[in-house]
């Protein structure tokens, strides 16, 4: 840092907070110290990241914070935050997990939603095609779960086989807007499916 920069009085903790946010979602329970600094510097952080076309999303009661691209209708800015593409199955898994979290929040007073792989499989299996090869389906589900873990919405618990915590930040990513889009795309898909029936696609009949 050059002397002229220090004279503009960058708060001491700001670089640590901003770079930490650049790296990913910040949780209060994992990074208590940075979190405290963030609470003290919220407006500075907001100002700083807004220069880059980013918004700070800070949910104090849920205990997480992250950066999101500012709404940019004209697409003038190059994207600083990548968009990850998802297959239909992974998208569906995210939506179902979001639904489960909502139920969990309304029905119980616990803080952490913990699910076993079996519970996730039970939740998803209704939506999978009936197949004689169950092992294959479970394998694919395993891959989908891994993808969601990569995205940071599921976290494997240490010391407990096949048990996951659903990250609360999922609420912020899979929001009403995202689900609306999902729903619309699915409706489009069903419309095309009904328009040009596939061989033996009797399942689409009810969609009409």
């Amino acid at each position, binding site marked *: 840092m050059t002397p002229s920069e220090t004279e503009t009085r960058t708060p001491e903790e700001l670089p640590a907070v901003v770079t930490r*946010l650049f790296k990913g979602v910040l949780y209060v329970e994992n990074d208590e110290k940075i979190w405290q600094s963030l609470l003290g510097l919220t407006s500075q952080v907001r100002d700083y990241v807004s220069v880059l076309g980013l918004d700070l999303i800070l949910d104090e*009661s849920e205990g997480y914070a992250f950066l999101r691209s500012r709404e940019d209708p004209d697409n003038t800015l190059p994207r600083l935050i990548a968009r990850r593409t*998802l297959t239909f199955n992974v998208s569906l898994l995210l939506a179902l997990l979001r639904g489960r979290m909502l139920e969990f929040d309304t029905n119980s*007073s616990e803080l952490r939603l913990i699910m076993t792989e079996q519970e996730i499989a039970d939740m998803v299996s209704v939506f999978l095609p009936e197949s004689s090869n169950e092992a294959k389906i479970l394998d694919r589900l395993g891959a989908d779960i891994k993808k969601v873990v990569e995205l940071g919405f599921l976290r494997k618990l240490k010391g407990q086989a096949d048990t996951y915590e659903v990250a609360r930040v999922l609420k912020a990513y899979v929001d009403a807007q995202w689900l609306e889009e999902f729903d619309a*795309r699915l409706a489009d898909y069903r419309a095309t*499916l009904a328009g040009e029936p596939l061989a033996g*696609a009797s399942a689409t009949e009810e969609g009409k």
Partner: protein
Amino acid sequence: MDFYAINSLRENHAGWSLLRAQNAPLALAFFMAAFTGPNQRNLGRQQLIDVLDDVLFGLRDAEGEERFPRRAVEYLDDWASDERKWLRKYYVPGEDEPHYDLSAAAEDVIRWVESLRGREFVATQSRLTSIFAVLKQLVQQSETDPEVRLAELRRQRDGIDDEMQRIRDGNIRVMTGPEALDHLQQLTTLAKDLLSDFREVEQNFRKLDRQVREQIATWDGTQGELLESIFGNQQDISSSLQGRTFQGFWDYLMSPQLRTELQDLLHRATRIEALAHTDSLHAVANLHQDWLPAVEQTQATVRQLSQQMRRLLDDKVFLENKRIMQLIRSVESGALGTREAPPSGLFMEIDAPSVDVVLPFERPLYEPSRKVMVDDAVLTADDLDVDADALFSQFFVDKERLRGNIDAVLADAEQATLGDVTAAYPLSQGLAELVAYYQLATESDWATINPEQEQRLSWRLPDGSTREATIEHIIFGRPA
């Protein structure tokens, strides 16, 4: 309570089901060992399993293995399951290990079972005294007529004056040993009751919380009406009857003056001569140390529940939750409709949680190898006491020499057994040399080891004695 109410309790109450359970003695013994005995709550899974293993180990030793065939983990999972509800299982923030606490129903059962054993000494007199004290307080503090209250206070003052006069006359009445014990027992019971109250208060808060949640989930009207109904019914946790009573107790315990007084009294109680030899005195003196964490935990639960409730009632969340529920239902039915032919390829996008900053200089580039400076200066140390023989008795088996021996023998023959080699070049370093030969054989492509056959090799020690080893038959072949 009529027959049906009791019957329904028998069928549905967690406590009663514990009493009826086949392995109730095991469960209760374990609960006492883990929770009520040491006055502990919030135990981690591993810690509980350890305690249960201890209990099981002792029992199996005495009762035989087949009496308790399941593993500790299975018992624990069973007792925490929704059908049993004897233990509450939950996850605390920041830890991946589940935690457990005794449910209030299970604690009631423990206390009841403990009371069955009977007391060695019935605390009658002190009970009567406390009944009088409570009754007096109830009557006096509820009296609204100032004249009556003043008269009562005057009567008390006269009583105190009389007592003081008696003491001045040298007529001091000291509590007898049995009386003191009686009071101590009463005190112990009260203190334990208080601790179990906390657990029950916490459980009641959770029940309250669940009721409000149910109300929110099934609410059809507007949010304003919902709030009105919740606050109208005083179901908000901290304003409930439970909440206010608990808060009262908390304030009481937190008052510095009262705490000093309590500590002082406890301290003085430990010095009462009549009680000097009772174990429970010590427990009572430390009981207030158990209260504080227990109260704090209840307080934390209430705070957490209230906070979550507030979040649930937040208008943005309230509306969004409704919308999200609709959308998820719609997505679910859509996904069911396309179950046999789900969309292939990439379907949706989601923002990555991190900002893409590629740091090319983080990648390792060419780096000229650095010269490592070796500091070979040897510091002279005082090593007079060190027995250096161990160092010098080590020796080195030169494999090249052995390989040379093999080659020399093979120069005259197509193949040679290890016996042939050692016959030509006798073993000089004993077993270590043999092992080195063995190693050479396993590494070489031209040697075979035949485990079916054995060969005996011998060597002579410096003191003249002979040693012999039996090893697998090794044949070295000449490299092609």
